């Protein structure tokens, strides 16, 4: 089985569905009085965070603890400008401590890839968000949430479901991973953003794109709003917050054009009043809080499968070098 989860592109459809099915089992654990499995007893999971992200870190921490793993949180703040200990030395240190899995969040795109492939460590590497590249467990938890709402019942799938991902696609690792994973799972993805916030070359991605949110909403089964940082305004990605909200924000009027079954998602943290209004975020369609609890279940499934919960768990034949993950 694969040793690492670096990109949503690493997952075949069978891999992804196995994660979702395993996550469903893990989720049922939440209803029990004792929310803990002995599966990873004696294994060590390190949360290596080079960038602040409390919600992702505690989600992974809860997931590992519910599987009885030992958890070490390692916060190594630093940027390309203020160099602290190098990624290599940090990695060698964790290797010496006997980490079985390293969950890494990093400001640099590709840092998890480097950790997995540079030969510094034998740990499994889970990408918990790297720069503006990918965030594969977020995509898995998003897919899991969609799956539960739109594909419940055995044998159901996301085939042909329409997912609109709206906002700052250019800087969003969530959008990249979701676009990859949702295609793998058979859904149709439309990226909606002002042209300045779509990556150059997006026409080569296997997705639709649109500049017109109102045209996309009535056909969508899922609307996923992305966080948009105010500071982007200063770099002229859009003129003002007000104009952005008018053209690309999800408010009550726009929500009324959605189909009855359509759900509204957001990876968080939300900026209420910017990309989403409070009445939408708190509406019945919103599954934003459920995404958080699903996140724990999905991360349990990922850790469980990566660390040997099932030999057929996450992918193809063994590859000790891990060299083909990208």
């Amino acid at each position, binding site marked *: 089985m694969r040793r690492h989860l670096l990109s949503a592109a690493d997952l075949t459809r069978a891999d992804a569905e196995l994660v979702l099915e395993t996550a469903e089992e893990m989720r049922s654990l939440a209803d029990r009085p004792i929310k803990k499995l002995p599966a990873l007893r004696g294994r060590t999971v390190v949360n290596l965070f080079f960038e602040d992200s409390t919600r992702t870190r505690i989600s992974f921490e809860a997931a590992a603890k519910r599987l009885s793993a030992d958890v070490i949180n390692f916060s190594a703040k630093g940027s*390309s400008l203020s*160099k602290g200990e*190098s*990624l*290599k030395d940090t990695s060698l240190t964790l290797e010496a401590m006997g980490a079985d899995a390293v969950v890494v969040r*990093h*400001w*640099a*795109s*590709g*840092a998890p*890839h*480097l950790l997995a492939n*540079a030969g510094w460590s034998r740990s499994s590497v889970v990408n918990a968000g*790297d*720069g*503006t*590249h*990918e965030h594969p467990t977020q995509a898995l938890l998003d897919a899991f949430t969609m799956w539960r709402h739109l594909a419940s019942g055995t044998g159901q799938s996301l085939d042909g479901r329409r997912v609109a991902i709206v906002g700052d696609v*250019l800087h969003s*690792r969530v959008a*990249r991973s979701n676009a990859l994973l949702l295609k793998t799972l058979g859904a149709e993805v439309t990226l909606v953003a002002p042209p300045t916030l779509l*990556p*150059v*070359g*997006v026409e*080569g*991605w296997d997705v639709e794109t649109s500049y017109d949110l109102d045209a996309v909403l009535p056909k969508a089964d899922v609307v996923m709003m992305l966080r948009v940082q105010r500071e982007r305004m200063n770099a002229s990605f859009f003129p003002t917050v007000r104009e952005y909200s008018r053209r690309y924000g999800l408010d009550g009027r726009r929500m009324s054009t959605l189909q009855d079954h359509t759900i509204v998602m957001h990876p968080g943290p939300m900026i209420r009043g910017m990309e989403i209004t409070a009445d939408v975020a708190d509406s019945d369609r919103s599954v934003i809080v459920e995404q958080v609890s699903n996140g724990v279940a999905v991360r349990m499934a990922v850790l469980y499968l990566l660390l040997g919960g099932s030999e057929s768990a996450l992918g193809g034949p063994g590859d000790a070098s891990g060299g083909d993950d*990208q």
Partner: protein
Amino acid sequence: MSGYLVRGARIVGGRPTDLLLEDGVIAALGPGLAYDGSEVVDADGLVALPGLVDLHTHLREPGREDAETVETGTRAAALGGFTAVHAMANTDPVADTAGVVEQVWRLGREAGHCDVFPVGAVTVGLRGERLAELGAMADSAARVRVFSDDGRCVADPVLMRRALEYVKAFDGIIAQHAQEPGLTADAQMNEGELSGRLGLQGWPAVAEEAIIARDCLLAAHVGSRLHVCHVSTAGSVEIVRWAKSKGWNVTAEACPHHLLLTDALAATYDPIYKVNPPLRSAGDVEALREGLADGTVDAVATDHAPHPHEDKDCEWQAAASGMLGLETALPIVQQTMVDTGLLDWAAVAQRMSVRPAQIGRLSGHGRPLAVGEPANLVLYDPASPHVVEAAGLASLSRNTPYVGRELPGRVVATFLRGTATVLDGRPAEHASTGARG
């Protein structure tokens, strides 16, 4: 025993001939020269080219002697077949005064592996605010003719105009690192579909092309000489071609890595492939080769950029830009230009020796291999495929992207004014090579 008798070399790929190198010049030339007691160099099957001239070398001294020194960098140059290199100004302190350029020049003379021609900074501290003392550097012992803020672009159009005008007084040239800074903030790799997928900030071709177009117009307007460093895009080649068609005094260089490698390598996230300007698309590589073939691109320049290991053994965004180039330049030009039928050896001599020497206004380099000319030459074996090994490099640094790649040929010997700097592919014991050309 005063010289060398080179037996059976093919001058720019022609018929085998002998060359007698004596007193710093080519003393005799022709098949079957009589043995006169000189040391014989068997050059059967080897191509003889005039000693290569690099317009773009980072020797890192003063300031970053952990990456390269004048001594190690020029030894690497000699092993690559070079007899002259232009040492870029982005040292610490910056080569923006007569004192610094003379120091670098003197270190080059002391090392003796090849001639070092310091490049002077255009602006004080490379800061792009006001002109450095270009005239003082031109009048110094280093006799600087090429000025560049390389590593940074002279982005201010007024400053660029003034620099172009000012160097006319001493037949200088401004070598521009064409990179519009506003369009390339935090840029990491060629902007295209792959940069979007990889989440690496894009370095768009237009940021290079817009500056080149502006500078061509400025050079024409003030009637000065412009040299464009490391052109990397198809559009840049088109603009230079257009400027030349107008009869403007614009020259350009391309780097070996831009003739061979593409941006697809960024998908490895291995910073060994991080370079500025970045590796571009296959279409750009094709256009650069065509431009070099038809003379739009005048010269091959290495942009030899040594970096210590730790500056490359890290995250892509944290890594330094640049790669080694001196020791692999000629084999890569063979692979990309000669073996593909785009250039013959005479044209390689033009692109790697004659034209760069003319652009740098070097009188003693880039000369034809003829009787009475300076004995600056390289003997090259184009049928010696070998795999590049990092341990075999003379450079202090190891940041070459070619480790493990097979290159088609190798430098066998290099002579600087009749003195061997390289023999049998290894550095030769050398005496001081004396006066400079």
